């Protein structure tokens, strides 16, 4: 059997072998190591080497669980050198929640009380890796003593460990913040540096603690800038740069900084500016500017800071340029400042940079500085980036789409309707809740957008054309198709022929969706789409008082398919039950619109039946998707003129969901609940997508039917709902983003086409698919 030394030497060659040879060699060595560790006569130095090899094999992906207990024993009973290796091995091999880690807590506690400062230091280092949040209380009292240890080496580590414990168990450890705060006056700069880091983390939870030490921080910063710290804290020509950054960051928590504070920041800035070619100098400059911007410093203070931003943006280093863009974004969040042509060029070149990180940073900047004239191009750029580069990064996808949605809300234009085009571009790229939010926005804008009615009708027609074209693409997003079927049902004519035409389209779409699914594929998105189609068909049938035979066939087919779950089958049955009586329903609805008499759509005539059923523990009806034809927040109390409103704006009562038909869908989406207590049911309250204060009053409670609930709620319309590398490409982009004139277009205004018309001419196949970068 090879000796351990030979095992160790041979394992060094593993780096030069193929994978299967490496696996064979490491497993073989692990067997030998295991044998060695189990021998009672093995020397500690050999155990150390075996543990080092175990760490190495775990690093390479091969488990060495047999070594864990030996690491624990070494840490518990070894000499100084052995304990060091034991703690390292435990920190690497074990996790806080492992049962073996629990064994170490007592060892750590014992070592913390040792007279040997190195043992104490090792135990403190190990505490950060091996003590779970539950066991923190065991060590806190002895840790508090170490804050006053004679050696600064131990005091520093004690502060760091307390900092770590504050992060994992803030409720237990924040009470020690006052003891740490006092250590700002420690004689050792290293200890002070750690105290500053601690204060940064607790500043939000305990602002009072930070306020107490502000004057001390100012003194320390002045001492640093005057070069009074030992020379060993100088780094790249700057005195204690890490401490400077910590202090400047803490100054952000001041409520009302005095002129002294601004002068201090200015002094720090002047001190760091000559070193801006170093990252550390630029880091200090960035921190100073961030603090000045946070406090909304005046023009004089900001002037020199902005020069630094310009310098960073113009730097040849891509890292410094990246930081310059981040800083510019922070500045523009607080101040509305125009960019010079040179700065605009930097932004443009960063937008077209091959580095995706730079592009992402620039997009974030553009979203911050977007104005009405360039918001459309900004949203287009965001959509393009999400589609091309965010297939595997849902966080960035979500963040960028949120920012684009905020822009569409802020800069809606009832004449150009650019925001609708932007929302349609973003919809196939969004996931889950964001997709729902975008659907709601599109629907609300089309139903109740601001501006005159003619513009809205034209927009609706264009959107229908766009969505119809989209529906013919090879790859379709279900969320866009859901909006399409909703638009079809919402904006079709009220005549029988119109209704039948739309029903045929819906049935054809439903058949396509149903038949293109694989038997093993049951996707929630497809089920939701089928439900939307059924609800839309129901709405059209009720509106026009007609039906077609193929609709019944489709419903039967859906019920028998593998896609149908209980809810889908129930929805189909509902519509099948109402289709024979559709003409009666249609007449009743028409009468309700024309008549001044208020109809009781709460169906109070079945109250007795409902009471008896609930008493017998029947399950209350919980529609998955509620219909609101009258969109929130408010609609006009319909004047008599609106009775002759265009046939595509039929209003249905909105406060209570009709148990017969819940109409079109996707305005409010409630999770299906398995508990059917009527008290638990929230389906009676209509959550507004914009404001939470518009709620329908609950109709039913455990005590029975509530009195004095209006069947209709028409409220006044308060606010009208304000229902985006080659040289030529760069110049075109510049003209769109910064209102620059393109060469050759002197004296003429750049006329932008209708955004909806432009979208109609796009290839939807390319617009809707998130590109995977890992092909």
């Amino acid at each position, binding site marked *: 059997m090879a000796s351990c030394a030979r095992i160790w030497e041979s394992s060094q060659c593993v780096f030069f072998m193929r994978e299967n040879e490496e696996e064979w060699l490491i497993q073989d060595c692990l067997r030998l190591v295991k044998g060695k560790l189990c021998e009672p006569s093995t020397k500690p130095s050999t155990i150390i080497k075996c543990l080092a090899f175990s760490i190495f094999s775990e690093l390479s992906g091969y488990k060495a669980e047999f070594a864990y207990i030996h690491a624990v024993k070494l840490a518990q009973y070894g000499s100084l050198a052995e304990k060091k290796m034991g703690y390292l091995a435990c920190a*690497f091999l074990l996790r806080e929640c492992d049962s073996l880690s629990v064994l170490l807590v007592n060892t750590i506690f014992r070592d913390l009380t040792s007279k040997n400062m190195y043992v104490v230091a090792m135990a403190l280092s190990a505490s950060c890796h091996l003590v779970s949040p539950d066991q923190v209380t065991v060590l806190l009292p002895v840790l508090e003593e170490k804050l006053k240890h004679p050696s600064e080496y131990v005091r520093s*580590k004690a502060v760091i460990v307390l900092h770590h414990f504050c992060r994992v168990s803030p409720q237990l450890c924040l009470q020690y913040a006052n003891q740490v705060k006092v250590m700002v006056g420690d004689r050792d700069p290293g200890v002070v540096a750690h105290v500053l880091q601690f204060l940064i983390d607790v500043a939000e939870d305990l602002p009072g603690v930070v306020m107490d030490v502000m004057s001390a921080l100012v003194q320390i910063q002045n001492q640093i800038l005057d070069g009074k710290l030992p020379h060993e804290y100088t780094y790249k020509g700057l005195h204690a740069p890490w401490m400077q950054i910590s202090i400047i960051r803490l100054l952000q928590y001041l409520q009302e900084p005095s002129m002294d504070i601004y002068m201090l920041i200015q002094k720090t800035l002047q001190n760091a500016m000559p070193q801006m070619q170093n990252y550390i100098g630029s880091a200090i400059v960035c921190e100073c500017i961030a603090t000045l911007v946070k406090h909304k410093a005046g023009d004089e203070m900001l002037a020199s800071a902005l020069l630094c931003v310009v310098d960073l943006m113009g730097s040849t280093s891509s890292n410094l340029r990246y930081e310059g863009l981040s800083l510019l974004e922070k500045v523009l969040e607080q101040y509305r400042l125009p960019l010079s042509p040179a700065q605009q060029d930097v932004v443009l070149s960063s937008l077209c940079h091959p*580095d995706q*990180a730079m592009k992402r940073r620039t997009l974030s900047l553009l979203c911050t500085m977007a104005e009405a004239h360039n918001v459309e191009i900004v949203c287009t750029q965001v959509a393009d980036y999400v589609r091309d580069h965010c297939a595997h990064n849902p966080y960035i996808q979500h963040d960028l789409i949120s920012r684009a949605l905020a822009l569409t809300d802020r800069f809606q234009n009832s004449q150009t309707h650019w925001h609708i085009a932007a929302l349609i571009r973003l919809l196939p790229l969004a996931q889950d809740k964001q997709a729902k939010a975008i659907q709601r926005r599109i629907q609300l804008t089309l139903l109740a957008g601001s501006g005159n009615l003619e513009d809205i009708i034209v927009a609706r027609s264009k959107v229908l054309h766009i969505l119809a074209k989209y529906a013919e693409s090879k790859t379709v997003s279900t969320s866009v198709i859901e909006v399409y079927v909703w638009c079809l049902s919402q904006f079709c004519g009220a005549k029988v022929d119109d209704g039948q035409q739309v029903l045929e389209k819906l049935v054809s779409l439903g058949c396509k969706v149903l038949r293109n699914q694989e038997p093993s594929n049951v996707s929630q998105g497809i089920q939701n789409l089928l439900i939307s189609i059924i609800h839309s068909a129901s709405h059209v049938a009720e509106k026009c008082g007609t039906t077609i035979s193929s609709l019944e066939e489709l419903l039967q087919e859906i019920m028998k398919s593998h896609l149908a779950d209980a809810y889908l089958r129930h929805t189909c049955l509902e519509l099948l039950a109402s289709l024979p009586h559709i003409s009666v329903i249609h007449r009743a609805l028409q009468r309700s619109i024309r008549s001044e008499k208020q109809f009781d759509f709460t169906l109070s005539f079945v109250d007795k039946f409902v009471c008896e059923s609930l008493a017998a523990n029947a399950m209350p009806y919980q529609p998955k998707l509620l219909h609101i034809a009258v969109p929130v927040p408010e609609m006009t109390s319909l004047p008599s003129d609106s009775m002759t409103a265009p046939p595509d704006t039929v209003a249905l009562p909105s406060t209570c969901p009709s148990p017969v038909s819940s109409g079109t869908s996707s305005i409010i989406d409630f999770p299906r609940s398995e508990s059917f207590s009527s008290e638990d049911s929230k389906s009676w309250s209509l959550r507004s997508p914009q404001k939470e204060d518009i709620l329908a009053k609950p109709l039913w409670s455990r005590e029975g039917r509530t009195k004095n609930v209006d069947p209709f709620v028409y409220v006044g319309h308060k606010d009208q709902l304000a229902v985006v590398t080659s040289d030529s490409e760069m110049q075109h982009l510049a003209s769109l983003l910064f209102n620059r004139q393109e060469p050759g277009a002197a004296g003429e205004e750049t006329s932008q086409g209708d955004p909806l018309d432009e979208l109609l001419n796009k290839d939807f196949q390319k617009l809707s698919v998130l590109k995977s970068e890992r092909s």
Partner: protein
Amino acid sequence: MQFMLLFSRQGKLRLQKWYVAHPDKLKKKITRELITTILARKPKMSSFLEWKDLKVVYKRYASLYFCCAIEQKDNELLTLEIIHRYVELLDKYFGSVCELDIIFNFEKAYFILDELLLGGEIQETSKKNVLKAIAAQDLLQEVSYGDTSIEL
């Protein structure tokens, strides 16, 4: 700082230090994905990238990539300097450090890293103090003292 990784140009992990608790499977997944992402980046690109909800700062020294994941509020340039500080320390300790030094003495690389960073925060910015502490511990390791207190 959430974690630090050192890996070679071939994607072999040489050192990993985690300052947040994650299950092993998740650590491996994160490591694998991040290594693939960083190795795909071109040399002229910036050292920063946004990855999931973290910021990643990386720098290549010869054949090794030093990669740190930090929170959104942390300063990227500072982290670059921390990486540089660590490399300077390794260089001073090993004398013209190369990848093989870290491979064959990875436990010493860990000890140095632990003296520089603890709990995800930089604990000693003075290069002299870090190297002094490591040298003193190395000396004790050779001499093997018992349980007596020692003044630094």
